[in-house]
C-alpha cells in the first residue's frame, strides 16, 4: 500500500511585475498577459511533501493544479523536483471562480484520487492572497486541517506531527491522516531541480499539448507512459456546473481600482549635517517629533 501525498499547487501571474493590461472588464484577472510562475508557498508545500516522502519508502507525491493549459508547466517543474505524477484540472467553465468554486473543483479532483493520506498546499497564492482555498477544500473533502505548517516532524504511528508557526510562537500538533496541511513560507525552501529527473520528464505533456506535436513525437510519447500528464475536465470530475465559475461564486467583484504609485512629492536629502539638521528642525516645528 502506498502512502499517497497530494500537493495542491497553482501557477500564478507574477504579481511583482504587473502591467496596465492585466485586468479584464469584469474584474477578473487576465492571466495570459503576465509572466507565470509557480506560486512561492506551493513550492514550500512541495518540499514539505517531498520530505514526508523521503522519510518513508512507500510514498508517492501527486501534483494537482487547476488552471489554464499552460499550468502544465508547474506540473513538469514538480516532476523535475521529485513529484511522481501530475494532474491538470482544466476547463473553460472553471474561469472566474472565486475561492469557494475553486475549492469545490479541487475537492472533486482530490476525492477522485482516493485513497490518499495527506493533502498539502501552500498557505496562500500571490494573486488572490486569500489563504482560503486550502481550508475550504479540506471542508469539502471532509478532512481536518492544519494551517501555518512550518516543519514536518515525523510520524507517531499513524499520526503525522507538524510544527506550526504562529504569531507569537510555535505549536506542535499531531493528527491522524488523512489531513490537509497549508504550508507557510517560513518552511524550508523547495529543493532544486534534479538533473536526472529533468532528463526523464522534460517531454512530459498533457493531452492538449500533445495535439500540437508531430507524429514522431507521439511515438516517443507512446513508449513512455510516465510522460503523460493527466488532464481532467468538468466532465471527468462530474462537477455540477452551477457551482463553478462566476455563477458558482458567492463573492462578486463590484469594482477594481488600480493602485497608482503616484510619485509622492518627496525630498531627497544627503547625509550632510546641514540637511539632517534642517530635517530635524522641520519635524520638531511641525510637532511630528518632540
Amino acid at each position, binding site marked *: 500500500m502506498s502512502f499517497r501525498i497530494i500537493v495542491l499547487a497553482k501557477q500564478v*501571474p507574477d*504579481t*511583482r511585475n*504587473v502591467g496596465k493590461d*492585466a*485586468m479584464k472588464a469584469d474584474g477578473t484577472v487576465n492571466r495570459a498577459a503576465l509572466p507565470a510562475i509557480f506560486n512561492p508557498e506551493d513550492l514550500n508545500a512541495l518540499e514539505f511533501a517531498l520530505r514526508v516522502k523521503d522519510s518513508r519508502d512507500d510514498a508517492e507525491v501527486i501534483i494537482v493544479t487547476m488552471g489554464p493549459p499552460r499550468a502544465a508547466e508547474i506540473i513538469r517543474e514538480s516532476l523535475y523536483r521529485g513529484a511522481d505524477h501530475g494532474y491538470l484540472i482544466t476547463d473553460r467553465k472553471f474561469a472566474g471562480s472565486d*475561492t*469557494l468554486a475553486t475549492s469545490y473543483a479541487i475537492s472533486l479532483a482530490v476525492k477522485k484520487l482516493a485513497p490518499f493520506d495527506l493533502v498539502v498546499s501552500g498557505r496562500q497564492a500571490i*494573486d488572490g*492572497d*486569500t*489563504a*482560503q*482555498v*486550502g*481550508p*475550504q477544500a*479540506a*471542508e469539502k473533502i471532509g478532512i*481536518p*486541517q*492544519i*494551517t*501555518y505548517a512550518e516543519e514536518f516532524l515525523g510520524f507517531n504511528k499513524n499520526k503525522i506531527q507538524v510544527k506550526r508557526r504562529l*504569531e*507569537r*510562537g*510555535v*505549536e*506542535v*500538533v*499531531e*493528527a491522524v491522516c488523512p*489531513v490537509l496541511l497549508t504550508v507557510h513560507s*517560513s518552511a524550508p525552501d523547495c529543493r532544486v531541480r534534479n538533473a536526472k529527473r529533468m532528463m526523464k520528464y522534460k517531454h512530459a505533456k498533457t493531452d492538449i499539448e500533445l495535439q500540437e506535436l508531430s507524429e514522431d513525437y507521439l511515438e516517443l510519447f507512446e513508449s513512455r507512459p510516465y510522460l503523460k500528464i493527466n488532464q481532467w475536465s468538468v466532465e471527468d470530475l462530474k462537477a455540477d456546473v452551477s457551482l463553478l465559475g462566476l455563477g458558482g*461564486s*458567492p*463573492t*462578486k467583484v*463590484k469594482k*477594481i*481600482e*488600480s*493602485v497608482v*504609485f503616484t510619485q*509622492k512629492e*518627496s*525630498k*531627497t536629502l*544627503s*547625509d550632510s549635517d546641514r*540637511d*539632517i*539638521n534642517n*530635517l*530635524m528642525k522641520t519635524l*520638531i516645528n511641525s510637532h*511630528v*517629533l*518632540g
Partner: protein
Amino acid sequence: MKNVFVYCEITEEGHIADVSLELCSKGRKLADELKVNLEAIVIGHKLKGIQEELAPFGVDTVYLADDKRLFPFTTLPHASIFSKLLKEQEGDIVLVGATSIGRDLAPRVASTLRCGLTADCTSLEIGDHYVKKTDTTYKDLLYQIRPAFGGNIVATIINPDMHPQMATVREGVMKKEEVKRKKLIEIVDIDVKKYVSDSDFVVNIIERHIEAQKVNIKGAQIIVAGGYGVGSKDNFKMLYKLADAIGGEVGATRAAVDAGFEEHERQIGQTGVTVRPKLYIACGISGAVQHRAGMDQSAQIISINTDEEAPITNIADYNITGRLEDVLPKMLKYFKQNSK
C-alpha cells in the same frame, strides 16, 4: 434576522484579542447604520466575566461556548460551534480577525455555510448594488474592500446572493473605540455538547511555546524600523538609541527578522503587524510590497538607504541617501540640539 456577528479570539493571557475589539468597534458602526444588533461569539475556556471586556464596545449579545477542549484553538470544534450558531441566528454580516486563527477558521466556516468570504479587508462599508441584466437592486450590502494582485489593485467585493457576508480584517486596520453609552450586554451560554461532536477533536496539540507579548508596536506613533540593510543584530542598537530619544518604537522587516536581527514581534508587513504612525523612519529597508502593506499608511515616511532606486523611495516623504552609521547619530544629535 439581520445582525452583525464578530468572532472574538482569546489571547494566551485569557483576554479578548485587540483585533476582535477593533472589529467590535467597526461592527458597532455597521450595526448602527443598518439598525441591527451587534453580537459576539467567544469560544474557549474559563470565560467567566469576559463580557466585561466586550460591553464597552457596544456588543448587544455575547454567546459563550466554554469548555476545556476549546482552548487552545483547533479548527473543527470552533468551526462546528460557529457555523451552527450562524445558521441558527441567521448571521448576516460576520467579521473575523485575520490572524492565524481567523484565517484558519473563517474559510472553513464559509465553506460549510457555502457563503462568500473576503480576506484581509482594509475597509468595510454599507452600500447598494444594481444589476442591469436583471434590473435588480440589492440594498445595504457589505462592501468588502481589499488590495489584491500583490497590492497592485484595490477591489470592492460583494456577496449579493449568498449570505452571510463574511470578511476577515487584520489587526490595526480598524480602530478600537469605546461607545459613549455602555449597553446592557445579554449573555447566552451555549451548551457546547450540542454543537460539537467527538470527531471534531482529532487534532491534538502536543507542545506549545507562545511568548507573552513583550512588545506591542501596533499603536506606536513613531517607529524606527530596520531592514536587512541594517546588517546585524548589533547594528540595531543604533535604531534603539534614536527611538528611545525621540519616543518611538523599533520595528523590523521580515528580512531582518528572518536573518535573526530582530524578534518576530517587531515585524511590520503583510505577515507582521500593520502600523499607522505619524512618523516612520525606514533604515536600510528596500520597501518590498509585502512590507509596504504594513506601513504605507504612515503619515510621514523617512527612508535612509544607500540605494537610490529602492522601491521605498516612491512612498517616502524624505529620502536620505547615506549610511545608517552616519545618518542615525546625526539625527540623534540634531534632535537633541533642536529640542532644547
